[in-house]
């Protein structure tokens, strides 16, 4: 069937063009109002602009068609420069439905289809189709076998708003909110400049205590703002498991929905920041196959109780389960891990402080020597991180754990590992230690250093079990899947 997207696409694309031009136009009009130069010509100009945008929207809608047959999905678009993109249905890796604010208002959605190609953006992007139609399309793109299983049991999971608020409160996004407010202030500065000046004059009459309180109040508002942003971003979170297909959706304003088969999961990452560790929480994310865009790493759960992770995995990702790592790093490797960075910092700080001490005249110049305090801090932080690095193998899963300020544990199925590499510099070759690295599809790599070579041999033996569905003749088959 060849068809066009919904006519509301015209409204949507017009709104988004106008929205992207809103700031410069608003600035121009505000300026005109301030100078009292607004007249009929201004309005004619604005109307012609809007008319042009509308005509452009109609033309782009007219030339925007898509065809879905049994083997391919084809999207044609473009007014002057035509483009046609054909994607093989069997190459599809994931299908997602996204809605931005305008689309939510108009009950429309964007359907994205991704394959494992290396382009950064989704292979197919169908904008402005009815939400119901998008859902229908998504299920029709699934293969037939899946559709017959549609009636199978469905398990859904939501995250209470209290948990989201707590996750937002501990996510340390205050800095981002501050940057946002500062940028906004820079922009509106010229319009509200005189009011700000007056405000500062008024403020200068207050006491230090009142000013401090005001400052703290502003910070508090920013902090609460950051929590609200977090809730808006991850709110209405819903994970649905149907057969072995997962659907993850979140976002109160801009809604993101991604559907993928559990087979597509390359790795599960469990992260615990130091503050999360204190209160026994963790966040779960997945590496799924997609183009190297943002969906490569997908948030599965922003704030799960550590003692509930096992139950969650059993229900939603039965292939993954937690276990304790068997292999620790080689204690003798630490000095090789730390010596070059330490030497580098020492040289850098020595050069920097020599320059400052020679050039500056003030007696404060010796304060630069405080830089050297970083060396012990770095040494102990690296040592603590190094000692906690682990790897382990179990039931067809490889686990790799690193801990710096944040504890990060990666679980990846053996059959998903595309390459296993160990490496060591020629100078350390005789020390019988090496660094390990695993490569997954989509240029994802995880590494850790340094492990004993005997441990690495064990890992290699574990990795070198059969990858074939029917093992080669005369070969011992030991795999346990």
């Amino acid at each position, binding site marked *: 069937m060849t068809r066009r997207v919904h006519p509301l696409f015209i409204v949507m694309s017009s709104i988004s063009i106008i929205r992207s031009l809103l700031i410069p136009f608003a600035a121009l009009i505000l300026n005109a109002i301030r100078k009292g130069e607004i007249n009929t010509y201004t309005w004619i100009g604005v109307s012609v602009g809007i008319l042009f945008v509308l005509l452009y929207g109609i033309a782009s809608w007219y030339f925007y068609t898509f065809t879905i047959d049994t083997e391919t999905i084809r999207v044609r678009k473009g007014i002057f420069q035509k483009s046609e993109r054909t994607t093989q249905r069997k190459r*599809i*890796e994931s*299908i997602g439905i996204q809605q931005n604010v305008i689309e939510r208002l108009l009950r429309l959605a964007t359907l994205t289809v991704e394959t*494992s190609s290396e382009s950064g953006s989704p292979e197919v992007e169908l904008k402005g189709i009815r939400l119901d139609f998008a859902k229908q399309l998504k299920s029709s*793109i*699934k*293969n037939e*076998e*899946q559709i017959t299983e549609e009636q199978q049991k469905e398990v859904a999971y939501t995250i209470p708003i209290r948990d989201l608020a707590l996750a937002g409160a501990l996510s340390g996004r205050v800095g981002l909110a501050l940057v946002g407010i500062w940028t906004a202030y820079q922009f509106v500065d010229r319009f509200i400049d005189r009011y700000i000046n007056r405000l500062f004059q008024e403020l200068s009459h207050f006491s230090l205590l009142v000013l401090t309180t005001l400052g703290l109040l502003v910070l508090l508002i920013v902090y609460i703002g950051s929590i609200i942003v977090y809730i808006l971003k991850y709110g209405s979170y819903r994970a649905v498991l149907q057969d072995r297909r997962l659907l993850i959706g979140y976002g109160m304003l801009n809604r993101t929905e991604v559907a*993928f*088969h559990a*087979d*597509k999961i390359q790795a599960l990452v469990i992260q615990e920041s130091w503050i999360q560790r204190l209160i026994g929480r963790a966040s779960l994310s997945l590496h799924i*196959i997609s183009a190297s865009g943002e969906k490569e790493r997908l948030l599965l759960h922003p704030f799960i109780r550590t003692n509930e992770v096992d139950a969650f995995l059993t229900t939603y990702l039965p292939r993954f389960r937690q276990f304790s790592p068997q292999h620790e790093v080689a204690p003798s490797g630490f000095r090789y891990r730390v010596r070059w960075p330490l030497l580098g910092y020492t040289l850098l700080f020595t050069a920097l402080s020599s320059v400052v001490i020679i050039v500056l005249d003030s007696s404060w110049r010796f304060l630069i020597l405080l830089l050297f305090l970083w060396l012990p801090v770095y040494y102990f932080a690296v040592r603590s991180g190094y000692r906690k690095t682990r790897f382990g193998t179990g039931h067809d899963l490889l686990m790799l754990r690193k801990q710096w300020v944040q504890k990060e544990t990666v679980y990846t*199925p053996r*059959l*998903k590992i*595309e*390459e*296993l*590499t*160990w*490496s*060591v*510099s*020629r100078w350390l*070759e005789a020390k019988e230690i*090496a660094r390990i690295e695993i*490569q*997954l*599809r*989509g*240029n*994802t*790599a995880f590494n850790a250093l340094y492990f004993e070579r005997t441990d690495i*041999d064990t890992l*290699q033996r574990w*990795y*070198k079990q*059969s*990858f*074939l*569905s*029917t093992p*080669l003749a005369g*070969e011992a088959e030991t*795999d346990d*899947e």
Partner: protein
Amino acid sequence: MSTVQWHALPERSIRAERLGLLPLHALIAVILIGTTITQVMWLDLTPWWMGVVGLLWLIYFIPRIVYIPVLRLKYMRYRIDEEFLVVRHGIFFRREVTVPLVKVQLIDSQTGPILRRYDLITLDIRTASGFATLTRLDRAQGEELRIQVERFAKLEEREEESL
């Protein structure tokens, strides 16, 4: 551990690598000499900086052409171990990469005039995550390796992904 033999590069790969480097470095030498002569003859300069550049180039060029091909021959090893390709390589870092042959997506083979003269071949073995390049293999050995890898392309991988 497996008893399969490690394969090494043939001795003549050293000569092939050296010969392959010559055109580029000859060009660099011509450019260096040319610019020095221009500066001395026409611009009336005393270009000591060209000496520095020339020295830096020599510091790179001599080890590159004399030692690195020998070290590559010494360190580079590969073998097909049941259903895995294991490659050991690296001059300053020793690396050992294990790739399951079923994951191999395509094999590119290249030969140029120099490689043909020494009966050598370069194989690019690509997986979805990256690739291993085996440079200057003996042509017969390379062909054999390619046939072995291609045999696996027909086999079915256990990890069958569905949408």
